[in-house]
């Protein structure tokens, strides 16, 4: 007898086996010159799947996001957001304003496969650390520049952030109940989405290099990433009109919305097809709607007036049901429904833990930790979190000795000349107060990080 499908897949994706499995990107060396979210997230993917990512920060200052946190809260002297953005990386601090600092970066670049930067367009180039310089010393290098509008074109030098990009792309006008009051996409979607397309760019360049031996330059523009996901352009060219904000109604699906249940929870339900609509009406005990001329065909159901009527009927039905009962029906019959989750439920979600997208672990420096794991599962070469972040310059010795072959004397000299450095004593940059750094074996490079 054949094994049940889910028993078969359960074995494939057995989370307890993850740490023993190979890493897809092992042996790939990445220089991460980036900061805040966009660039660091490109590097994070590579680090989760086994690349050796060396994050280069400015001594004392470090990544701006080290001090960026919500409502002033820190976790063991660190920004917990920064932790989430930069696991598995090696932290070195080099002063890029010093010629000798630039030389150190270039020495690392000679031995690297990928360089990631997200300074304002043109700045890395002006510093002599751009693609022109790097490709000269390492022609096989894959160099990705992440910026608001790209390195090429008249808007290139204009400043950008997540929210600015949401506005320049038009995304800003899409969320909410009316044109007069739109909301931003929260939690910096304008950084996280472009970052994943940057990852795709780097991975495709690595694949291209496997086949041809050639490196390349990648120009990743935040705003173009957001434009790629908008249906507005095609809709406009076909109808001559724009798509306007429609609140919780998804204009491509009717009925659709976020509704309040009898027990006061918010639940979303959306119907994409005729088949799904029939199923929903059965669940509602209102099959007559499925043969109603206004709703029977998807094309009719989506039209303004009809959509409003069917949405209202659904809202009323949801109001008479408990959330759990709706989910039970959705599972049994097969229509799309989900209770609106929240931060706490997410991080404590058993399903996510079983998938490996929420992971609990003990970090050598920060202790008990619970963070998001890889967002997709690969059964033979899965991603994994091996450690959290470290203070500025924590891996200086590790990287300079192991990779560049510098001696203790060389390093002391560079320290003295302020070419390399460490954290200063501000929160977000320093080690947790309970760590005695003078005895730390990794910091003093008495031992390797765990593979």
């Amino acid at each position: 007898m054949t094994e049940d499908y889910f028993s078969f897949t359960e074995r494939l994706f057995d989370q307890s086996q993850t740490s023993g499995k190979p890493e897809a990107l092992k042996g790939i060396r990445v220089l991460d010159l980036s900061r805040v979210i966009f660039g660091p997230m490109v590097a994070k993917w590579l680090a989760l799947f086994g690349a050796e990512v060396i994050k280069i920060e400015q001594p004392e200052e470090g990544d701006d996001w080290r001090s960026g946190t919500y409502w002033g809260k820190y976790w063991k002297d660190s920004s917990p957001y920064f932790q989430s953005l930069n696991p598995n990386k090696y932290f070195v601090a080099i002063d890029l304003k010093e010629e000798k600092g630039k030389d150190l970066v270039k020495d690392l670049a000679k031995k690297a496969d990928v360089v990631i930067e997200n300074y304002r367009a043109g700045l890395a180039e002006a510093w002599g650390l751009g693609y022109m310089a790097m490709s000269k010393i390492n022609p096989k290098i894959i160099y990705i520049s992440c910026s608001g509008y790209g390195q090429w074109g008249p808007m290139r030098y204009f400043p950008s952030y997540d929210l600015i990009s949401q506005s320049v792309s038009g995304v800003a006008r899409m969320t909410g109940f009316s044109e007069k009051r739109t909301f931003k996409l929260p939690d910096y979607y304008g950084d996280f989405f472009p970052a994943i397309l940057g990852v795709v760019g780097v991975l495709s360049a690595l694949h291209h290099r496997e086949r041809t031996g050639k490196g390349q330059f990648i120009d990743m523009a935040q705003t173009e990433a957001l434009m790629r996901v908008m249906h507005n352009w095609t809709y406009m060219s076909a109808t001559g009109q724009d798509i306007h904000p429609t609140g919780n109604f998804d204009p491509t699906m009717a009925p659709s919305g976020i509704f309040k249940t009898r027990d006061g929870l918010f639940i979303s339900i959306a119907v994409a097809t005729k088949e799904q609509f029939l199923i929903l009406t059965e669940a509602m005990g209102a099959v007559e709607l499925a043969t109603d001329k206004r709703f029977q065909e998807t094309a009719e159901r989506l039209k303004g007036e009809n959509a409003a009527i069917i949405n209202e009927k659904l809202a009323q039905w949801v109001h008479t049901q408990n959330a759990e009962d709706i989910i039970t029906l959705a599972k049994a019959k097969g229509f799309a429904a989900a209770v609106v989750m929240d931060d706490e439920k997410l991080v404590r979600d058993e399903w996510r833990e079983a998938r490996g997208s929420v992971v609990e672990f003990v970090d050598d420096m920060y202790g008990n930790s619970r963070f998001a794991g890889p967002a997709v599962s690969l059964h033979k070469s899965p991603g994994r979190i091996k450690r959290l972040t470290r203070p500025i310059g924590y891996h200086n010795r590790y990287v300079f000795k192991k990779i560049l072959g510098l001696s203790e004397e060389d390093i002391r000299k560079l320290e003295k000349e302020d070419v390399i450095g460490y954290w200063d004593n501000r929160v977000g940059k320093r080690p947790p107060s309970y760590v005695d750094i003078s005895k730390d074996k990794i910091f003093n490079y008495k031992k390797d990080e765990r593979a």
Partner: protein
Amino acid sequence: MKKKEQVFSKHMTGKKTQEQLEQFNKLLGEMMGSIGGKKGALEQIRVLEIGHANFPGLVCGAMLGEMGADVIKIEPPQGDAAREATHHGHYIQGVGIPFVMESRNKLLITIDFDDEQGIENIKKLVRKADILIDAMKPGYLDELGIGYRQISAVNPGLIYAAVSPYGHYTQKGRDFQNIPDTDLTAQSESGYPALTGDPGLPEPDNYPVRAGIWAATYMSAAVCVAGIMTALLHRDRTGEGQMVDMATYDALSAWMGFSHVWGFTNEKPRIRVGNYDWCLFPYGYYQAKDGYVTVAAGSDADFRGLIKILGRWDLEDDWRFVFDRIADDPVKLDELEKEMKKEFVKHTRKVLSEKTLAYGAKAARDKLRSKGFPIVVSTLKPSEVVEEKHWKIRRSFEEFDIKDHGRITVPSLPPRMSESPSKIEWIKTGIGEDNEEVYKKYKLIMKD
């Protein structure tokens, strides 16, 4: 004379640096100006996409195709039901806008899944494939004898990407396998709407609010493509294929991860805070004299720069706001927000953005670099965005003819790659439009 390009860093001034930047620009022009004969990174990679009303699956296929893969989308004879979804019921030749957009570079064929010959045809195709996108109900292809365990036996190099709401493993995956994919429900299971909205508004506008684009669909599709590419690199070195599992109801939250951080460290969820941000202030949309502006002035230095520009330096010394990191105090924010709103509405969008840019350019040359750089831009409508010359130069939008319809515009996939650029070659939408070509090429058997 050409107008001098405005720069916002002291490091980008000086004759020598300017020359260097000019040289870089020239190189970019050569690398990016025209694609010429360059091929995409996934040239010769063969992809099969099988899906039913599954939007992330559609997007995965489109992105792989745009990077140069040969993508064959297999539909049942009546077509993929994903064709039905479209904005307000507007179709292009009977096909929904999202489906049209995500049909780029695909060959469209039909195969009858209920017919043994059809399954034989799929088996033939799969033997020669590098990547299979399974966007059907979990276990469905396995039942038909074309799931991962059967195919990997004959094609061990295959990368099998399973795309479904709750994934192809775990107890919940099993219990929820009937639930179809939609962006809205995926957003909700990822906790995304819980972060948007204003509890102060009247019901139901005070509910959690849907992101007005397919935020979850596109995020999960892109994460899945990154997973596929990672598996492809593993294969490049080992020759081994593998199974990639994407839970589309999870990827948005897992990739962004900030909800997890908040939940872990606070042990309670965030409340909805309207126009505010949890880390930065001001960081939101404001009414200007002639429309809306977006303001990002997150650091204390940026904020001080902003009130200087707005002529409200008096606020700097106001007892309510003298502390740094003003964004950390939501109660005081309400008061400060009132002052901000009062100021922005006095000026036009143009004046606000010109003033802040001029300030930023000057502040960037400051020795101590302590003057900040507040940014104010017009909150553009999409109809204003398409007119921008910058995107024309970069070919961010492309136009295609749809048979019997006319021209349509679609956005192209970033990033721009100097050696292996992505490219939209065609957009087709007809059900089974490429049957003849594909059936012949792969010697499939056509039922009469």
